[in-house]
């Protein structure tokens, strides 16, 4: 058995030709398909939790299993609700895994941030020191330009979301939960803020320098 529990996946994928039918037609085959699907959900959720385990402050395997199983239960319900939307564009297993991965990742981030404050307030951005005085001077200049653009070109809402997500590193689903917003809505705000910043920096002749410093040129 691999660390991902391939035995479970192989068992789950063997013998089921049509997962949608197996999961929807009542009978013993449905019961077996449900059991196998749950195994898949646990496998995927466990994989996600293990990959993010370092964010949980060194929790033990018992906690990993607890989160994985809770996430798997939630994900299984989501898969069954969305079953009719499966179009066969990928393997059924890959399609189903994504529900458990999303649920587990969201649950881990929520747990990792549950005792942390999310600040949506002031903006104090400092340039990092480079290795040479001239690098520091250029970095400081560009930082000042971007900071001014953030203050003058963005709406207060855009500014708060941009700084929280990008500068403070608040996970988007954690921020969405704290604000009662959707992940989609916050990403749209972030997208619009970045677009407005880039347009302003292009108009003022700074975009090329910033792209170069960010390694994009």
């Amino acid at each position, binding site marked *: 058995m691999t660390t991902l529990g391939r035995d479970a996946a192989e068992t789950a994928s063997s013998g089921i030709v049509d997962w949608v039918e197996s999961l929807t037609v009542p009978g013993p085959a449905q019961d077996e398909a449900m059991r196998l699907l749950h195994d898949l959900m646990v496998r995927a959720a466990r994989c*996600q939790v293990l990959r993010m385990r370092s964010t949980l402050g060194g929790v033990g395997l018992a906690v990993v299993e607890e989160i994985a199983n809770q996430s798997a239960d939630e994900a299984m319900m989501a898969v069954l609700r969305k079953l009719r939307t499966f179009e066969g564009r990928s393997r059924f*297993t*890959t399609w189903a895994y994504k529900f458990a*991965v999303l649920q587990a990742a969201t649950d881990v981030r929520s747990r990792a941030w549950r005792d942390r404050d999310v600040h949506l*307030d002031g903006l104090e*951005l*400092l340039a990092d020191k480079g290795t040479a005085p001239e690098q520091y001077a250029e*970095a400081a200049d560009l930082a000042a330009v971007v900071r001014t653009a953030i203050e003058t070109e963005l709406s207060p809402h855009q500014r708060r979301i941009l700084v929280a997500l990008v500068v403070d590193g608040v996970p988007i689903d954690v921020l969405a939960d704290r604000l009662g917003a959707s992940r989609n809505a916050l990403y749209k705000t*972030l997208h619009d803020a970045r677009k407005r910043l880039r347009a302003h920096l292009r108009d003022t002749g700074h975009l090329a320098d910033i792209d170069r410093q960010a*390694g994009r040129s």
Partner: protein
Amino acid sequence: MNNRHRPLGPDVLGRLTLDTDPWLSCDDCFRLVDEYVEALLAGHRDVMPPMRVHLSGCPACAEEAATLLVLAADDAGVDPAATLAWLDSVAGR
């Protein structure tokens, strides 16, 4: 207003000003990600350009796509290392 100071080095500056056109929502990313990771594992890194752009600008979606890639690779009996490294570079990790 408070006195918390945040560093604004090249990495943060780059993420603040990232070009995330063409637009793709997190919901659209979720809808497509299973098909996308299987295409990546098959060696098709140029498929669905909006997905690459979205994953470069959304760390949460990128984190989840990486896990899905590992799972799909394990099912397919494929080593995900190279594709995972490429995906990490797209996400700026």
